[in-house]
């Protein structure tokens, strides 16, 4: 049975984000309580996710390295997208990530005080990844870079829980057909199973309607959406159970593909993609 490996400090797993940073990522998209630039929304989602993962792995004596995480951006160039002291590194243990945010912002929000009023609450928000929207969409090169990083990682961790790759894009590749590159990436495997590839398509196509974890390419608006559906990995039973928690319907043929994600759906998709693991 695949996807059963226990995740521990001796046998960690990893997450790799491939983030489209092309100029069209400056367009706006719904963010629940207003609109937000796609690039800013993606950066917020990833920073929040890194914060939650750091807290999840924290114990009284520090953060335990159950996971390594990489964030690769592609736009004007292709490469590691962390900022701060971990800039330039493609796969970083979660303890170092937790200890090295580029900065910690303080954000205030109003929450119910339990007596019918509102009270201001200040939360610390660490930042590791900044929004960028500049250049073309070299998706083929990004997939090749992802393949190289995952291949190295699996070579060092051959029995690990399979790497999970979350690919977020809004557009069309400008450097060729990425189909075979994406397939090669998702066919990499540890002894516990294949890499899980999630494709999240923030499409600009006016015909695109939001779709979450479909089980066929029927109705997808263009060849890019279809390619991203075809290359996404099938959902595991655990992922399907998590989708149900988020009130998203799936079938046993559903794939890790989301079309026209707003920021709420983007956060849900990242949660569904990254939570299923035997962290004990």
């Amino acid at each position, binding site marked *: 049975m695949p996807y059963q490996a226990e995740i521990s400090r001796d046998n960690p797993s990893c997450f790799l984000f491939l983030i489209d940073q092309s100029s069209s990522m400056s367009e706006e998209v719904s963010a629940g309580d207003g609109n937000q630039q796609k690039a800013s929304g993606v950066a917020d989602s990833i920073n929040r996710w890194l914060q939650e993962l*750091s807290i999840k792995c924290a*114990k*009284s004596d520090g953060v335990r390295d159950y996971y390594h995480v990489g964030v690769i951006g592609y736009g004007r160039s292709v490469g590691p997208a962390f900022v701060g002291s971990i800039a330039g590194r493609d796969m970083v243990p979660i303890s170092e990530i937790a200890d090295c945010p580029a900065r910690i912002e303080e954000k205030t929000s109003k929450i119910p005080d339990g007596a019918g009023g509102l009270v201001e609450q200040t939360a610390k928000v660490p930042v590791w990844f900044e929004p960028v929207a500049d250049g073309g969409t070299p998706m083929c090169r990004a997939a090749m870079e992802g393949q190289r990083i995952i291949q190295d990682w699996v070579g060092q961790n051959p029995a690990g829980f399979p790497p999970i790759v979350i690919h977020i894009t809004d557009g069309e590749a400008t450097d060729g057909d990425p189909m075979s590159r994406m397939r090669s990436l998702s066919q990499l495997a540890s002894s516990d199973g294949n890499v899980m590839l999630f494709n999240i398509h923030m499409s600009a196509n006016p015909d695109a309607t939001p779709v979450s974890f479909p089980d066929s390419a029927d109705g997808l608006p263009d060849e890019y959406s279809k390619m991203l559906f075809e290359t996404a990995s099938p959902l595991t039973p655990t992922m399907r159970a998590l989708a149900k928690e988020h009130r998203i319907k799936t079938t046993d043929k559903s794939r890790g593909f989301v079309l026209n994600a707003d920021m709420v759906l983007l956060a849900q998709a990242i949660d569904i993609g990254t939570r299923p693991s035997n962290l004990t």
Partner: protein
Amino acid sequence: MWICTQAFHVPKHGNAAEEYEDAFFPDRVSQRGLTAFRCAVADGASESAYAGEWAQILVRSFGRRRLRLAQNQRTWQRLVQGRPVPWYLERKLANGAHAALAGLLLRDRRQRNPRRGSWRAVAIGDSCIFHVRGDELLAVGPVCRSDDFDNNPYLVSSKNSGPLRRDDPHVSIVSGSWRLKDIFYLTTDALAQWILAEYEAGRPPWKFLRALGGKQKSFEAVIEDLRKSKALRNDDTTLIRVEVK
């Protein structure tokens, strides 16, 4: 009442001894003439910080007198506050620590019957108590089937205020009577699940558990074998055996 107990414990494979986050109380007892005896195991949740300390506070509180949750929570708060912590621990500590708890109280009733007494078990979460007479399982709880363990049991929080109430649906209170030579086992979830699975498969492990004697090393070896064969989940593992002699 003559009570003999022995506790056994093994940290999760891959973790250091100081990373063990279960707790038990007491370690070992052989005492005659008792009119009451209390013992407990607790299982600190792995996603909490200072969960082992919280589990320790709970078993000592239950074992020495009775559970005083508000006081226990203040003890935990004093332990964790006042030290500078990195950003990721701030929110973790604000969420508190969590633990499962199973406690057992035995009472002598010699004035009524010299060979019998009463017991009461209190449990929150998935640490379990088994009452065994000879080869017969008389009572088990709060989880009664090996399939009923999951990753989200209700746990005792170091943050919620207010005392535990008897009518709280998450608090399981069961009582019964014991006879001389009865044995009680208190275990944290991984071993409780294995015991129940063996029992359901027609292989009750009572002889094996009795045969452990007082040897912690034997227990460690058995647990290692069970983990290797995947019969036992890799988790902190704790057992208290209580014999009424």
